[in-house]
């Protein structure tokens, strides 16, 4: 790369120009960013795990809440989340295929697999919108809940859930749902944006002129991390 000055041999190991762990600067910083990002996701899942067990009596089972499936009028448990998991694993595979193609300098294959990764990411975002829509709209029947307003308790009918009320059970369930899947969704969104940028760079031949496809590896790391987080959200939020 043009911007890295080769270290003079006299400078020694502490003089700069050395790659620690023999890994490039960009890739290592991406790893450390991902670790710091994992801290944020971990705090959400840690507090979720605590609240879920503390209010176990009022906590709804997630597989009884998210039962909708597109083009199917009945209720089916876990099917849609499993589909979302499949979409994300699939887009992870296409990303790893793009990275592999980058190692072989196969520009056509890089463009093809990156494009499929973008498609997978968009499908996942669409699925998340679908899930949010049904969670916010709620069931047809709704549920009566006690609210405190103007100095007195009264009973109102509510449908669905938001940050003030939740028809399915404990309020924290709705809050955690919006925060965890929302935070993850925003990561998927920025991942798609990064993938599109690198896709354009690959199509224009910018990466080929640079001599290597490390940019694909870097956004690949980010994309796999997003997939990894979803694996944990799937287990701790939907399965347990």
């Amino acid at each position, binding site marked *: 790369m043009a911007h890295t000055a080769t270290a003079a041999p006299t400078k020694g190991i502490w003089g700069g120009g050395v790659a620690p762990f023999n890994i490039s600067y960009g890739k290592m910083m991406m790893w450390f960013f991902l670790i710091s990002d994992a801290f944020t996701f971990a705090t959400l899942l840690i507090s979720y795990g605590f609240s879920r067990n503390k209010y176990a009596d009022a906590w709804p089972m997630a597989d009884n809440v998210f039962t909708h499936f597109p083009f199917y009028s009945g209720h089916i448990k876990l099917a849609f989340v499993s589909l979302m998991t499949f979409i994300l694993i699939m887009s*992870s595979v296409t990303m790893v295929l793009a990275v592999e193609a980058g190692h072989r300098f196969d520009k056509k294959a890089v463009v093809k697999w990156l494009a499929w990764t973008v498609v997978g990411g968009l499908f996942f975002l669409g699925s998340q919108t679908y899930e949010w829509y049904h969670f916010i709209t709620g069931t047809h029947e709704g549920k009566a809940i006690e609210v405190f307003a103007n100095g007195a308790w009264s009973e109102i009918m509510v449908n669905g859930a938001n940050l003030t009320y939740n028809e399915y059970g404990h309020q924290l369930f709705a809050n955690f749902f919006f925060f965890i899947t929302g935070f993850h969704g925003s990561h998927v969104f920025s991942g798609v944006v990064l993938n599109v940028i690198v896709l354009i760079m690959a199509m224009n031949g910018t990466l080929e002129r640079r001599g290597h496809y490390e940019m694909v590896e870097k956004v690949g790391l980010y994309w796999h991390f997003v997939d990894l987080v979803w694996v944990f959200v799937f287990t701790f939020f939907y399965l347990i």
Partner: protein
Amino acid sequence: MDNYHQHMYVPGAAIESPKTKWIWRVFWILLIITTVEVSFAFWNEGGRHLPLVFQKWFFITLTLVKAYYIVFSFMHLGDEKFNFKLTISLTSVLFVYFIVLMMFEGHAVHDIRLIIPDFIIEAHQMHGGAEH
């Protein structure tokens, strides 16, 4: 050029044929584990056949297996130096440890609320220790 770029693109050089067998192998492993998780959740709905505690540990273990394959194969951490593997994986394992720890903690707080007589909790709430 950096010392970690093993080779650079030479214009006009022949493109090698893809080696993607290992990618699809990992894909099938991830897919099968997810299918096992979902079908186990259906089979053991509400703890019909096996205790839910067992189910929790089963799912957490399978999740860690999936995480291992994603990080070490897809993210190529397996190809890095041993100390870098430690840097990343030790930190990450502590996250999962803490999640499980706080699940136990929440469970204990829940149980303690069942043991303490109601009038103590009510007295506590009257003095500003609001709950819910």
